[in-house]
């Protein structure tokens, strides 16, 4: 289990991370979210033993993180950290040897993953010759090739097309099934919602939301209702409790200030003609994030 307890980090007088605490268990995907400059990168750097916290402790399976423990961590950085002049094979041998792997094992694992990501032909190609998406695949492989116990993924889907995003999602879920602890960070909230059961939102170094995703969503009484019927935006806007109506294609999304108003809206819509959809949904993570961080 990865455990952060009361972690604070100062850069001179600036408090980058303020009393941060969370834990990630085996087979769990934990979302660490925040706007730019919220303290995510500093947190990752502290977990990776790149910088020391000013106070607080970070442990992985009850051990303080040192250079032996970092061998058990895989890190996919937001900005690509690839040595562009090396070939894929050279880079993988370089990074994985630093993780304590033997060369023969690296080659076997590399071939397996290159095949999985459909880029076998790039084994001896220089990194600088690869496309943006393929570079991201190589970086992802470099983070998981040593079968880490803890995997930190900072914007893993950057530069990927939808097909490759699905491929990544499959692999991440497989790693989760195997018991890997995963910290996932992304500005794409739909991706976070897809994976994370637990999450934490940082704002200016401070934790503003933390906990189980379902519980977090239930804390908010606001609801969105998706409607397909012969009803206009103006009609719906007049109903008490309706904060706003957005036209989304052939649907209308009604934003309701409280779930108690849903019954009244349902009553109104049920009297309309051609009702094919009436779906009540909780606030999206995107809405929660913008509401809390933007506040």
């Amino acid at each position, binding site marked *: 289990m990865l455990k952060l307890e009361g972690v604070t980090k100062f850069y*001179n007088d600036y408090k980058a991370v303020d009393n941060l605490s969370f834990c990630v268990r085996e087979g769990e995907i934990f979302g660490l979210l925040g706007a730019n400059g919220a303290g995510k990168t500093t947190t990752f*750097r502290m977990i*990776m*033993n*790149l*910088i*020391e916290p000013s106070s607080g402790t970070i442990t992985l399976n009850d051990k303080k993180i*040192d*250079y032996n423990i*970092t*061998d058990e*961590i895989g*890190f996919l*950085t937001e*900005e*690509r*950290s*690839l*040595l*562009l*002049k090396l070939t894929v094979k050279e880079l993988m041998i*370089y*990074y994985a*040897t*630093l*993780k304590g792997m033997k060369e023969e094992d690296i080659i076997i694992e590399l071939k397996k993953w290159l095949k999985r990501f459909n880029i076998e032909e790039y084994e001896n190609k220089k990194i600088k010759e690869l496309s943006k998406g393929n570079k991201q695949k190589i970086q992802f492989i*470099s983070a998981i090739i040593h079968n880490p116990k803890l995997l930190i993924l900072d914007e893993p889907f950057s530069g990927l097309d939808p097909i490759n995003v699905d491929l990544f999602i499959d692999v991440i879920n497989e790693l989760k099934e195997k018991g890997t602890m995963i910290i996932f960070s992304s500005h794409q909230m739909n991706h976070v919602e897809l994976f994370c059961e637990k999450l934490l939102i940082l704002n200016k170094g401070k934790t503003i939301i933390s906990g189980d995703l379902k519980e977090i969503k239930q804390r908010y009484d606001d609801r969105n209702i998706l409607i397909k019927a012969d009803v206009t935006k103006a009609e719906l806007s007049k109903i008490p409790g309706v904060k706003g109506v957005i036209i989304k294609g052939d649907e209308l999304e009604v934003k309701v200030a409280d779930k108690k108003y849903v019954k009244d809206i349902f009553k109104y819509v049920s009297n309309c003609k051609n009702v094919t959809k009436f779906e009540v949904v909780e606030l999206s993570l995107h809405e929660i994030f913008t509401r809390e961080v933007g506040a």
Partner: protein
Amino acid sequence: MKNKFIFLTKTSLLKKIKNKTFIIVNIFLSLILISLVNIDRIVSFFGGDFSNEKNIMIVDNTGQTYDILTNYIKNTESILKTNLNYKMSKVNNENLLKKEIKSEEDIGIIINKSDENVIDAKLVTYGYINSNLYQLLQSSINSSKQFLAINELNISSDDLQKISQTVNIERVYMDKDKNKNDEDTNTIMGIIVPIIILPFFLLTILVIQMIGAEINEEKSTRSMEIIISNVSVKTHFFSKILSSNLFILIQTLLLFMYAFVGFLIRSGNKFINNINFISDVLPELKKLSIMDKVLPAVPFVLLLMIITILGYSILAGLLASMTTNMEDFQQIQTPIMIILLVGFYLSLMSSMFEGSIFIRILSYIPFISAILSPSLLLTGVIGYKDIILSILIMVVIIYILLKYGIKIYKEGILNYSNSNIWKKMFKSIKKQGGKNV
């Protein structure tokens, strides 16, 4: 961690050696060095007018100078060994001579009697002639004039021999440590400077650039974060320093090998004779009293040079950690380059400052000492004790650089901002404790 250090060093060294630029540069270097050692053969191979026979024609209007002048030309040429291919002949008059001068190979000398200067001479050629040939003819004509002047004064042959004999100049030195052989060291210096000082200067620049480029490559691609998360900052730093210094050692050995191959090609079957030549020369060098002082100091000079390159490497590593790309590194390394250049020029001009206390003090200054010491040692300004002192000072400086430098490196290596570089550097020195590096 030890294995990771070896791995990092090995990878970094192999990357440099397998680099296309290294291979291309060394192909050129080998060709240039081998060619330089055999330059006379290459020049001969391509041919040229240097082998053409010069036709020297002399009009002797004095009636007594021709034989004297031809003898002096022969003697002077045999002393100077200009390898001039020539023949000499007598021509009756100036008009005839001018008609005979039809090409660059024809040279005419007209000797006339002079009341004021014993003889006057006129040199007639088709075009320009080279300065060596001109000096040969001028020297021979002057000697002929002196001979004729002495004859006019009816000086006997014994007296003439006395006049012609070189004056024996005995040298007396009030300083007991000085002697004639020391004065010969200027000649030796002329050889030592290009063989020792210049390569040291160039190799130091190479090591500084190499360390800067490698660290900045890892920083600019952000792969530094992956590397530093797996090895300590200290391990990373020392692997860069060691691999660059090993590379320099390999490059130096390769340069010696190219020169050796050049000599092998030059000597062919006679290589054994050349070895004999070296064994003949060494005892001769040992006869020079300066060599008694120089030879024991050679290992110390080498040691000083090695630790100074190490010092420059450490300094380059620290500065590279504070920059984020090669352009910034080029700017921040300027002070190192200036120090190196100052040392280089002082070394070239060291003979001008002989006896100066100032230059002796400069020879102890770290980073300059290694480049200045070889020439000062040869001119007798410093001895091996001074070099030992310079080594000790350099070791202390390296210790200080490492003690505070690792903190700077640790702070700088993950810093991607260019603002307040120097302020950050000093702040990181002041910082106590922190992460175990």
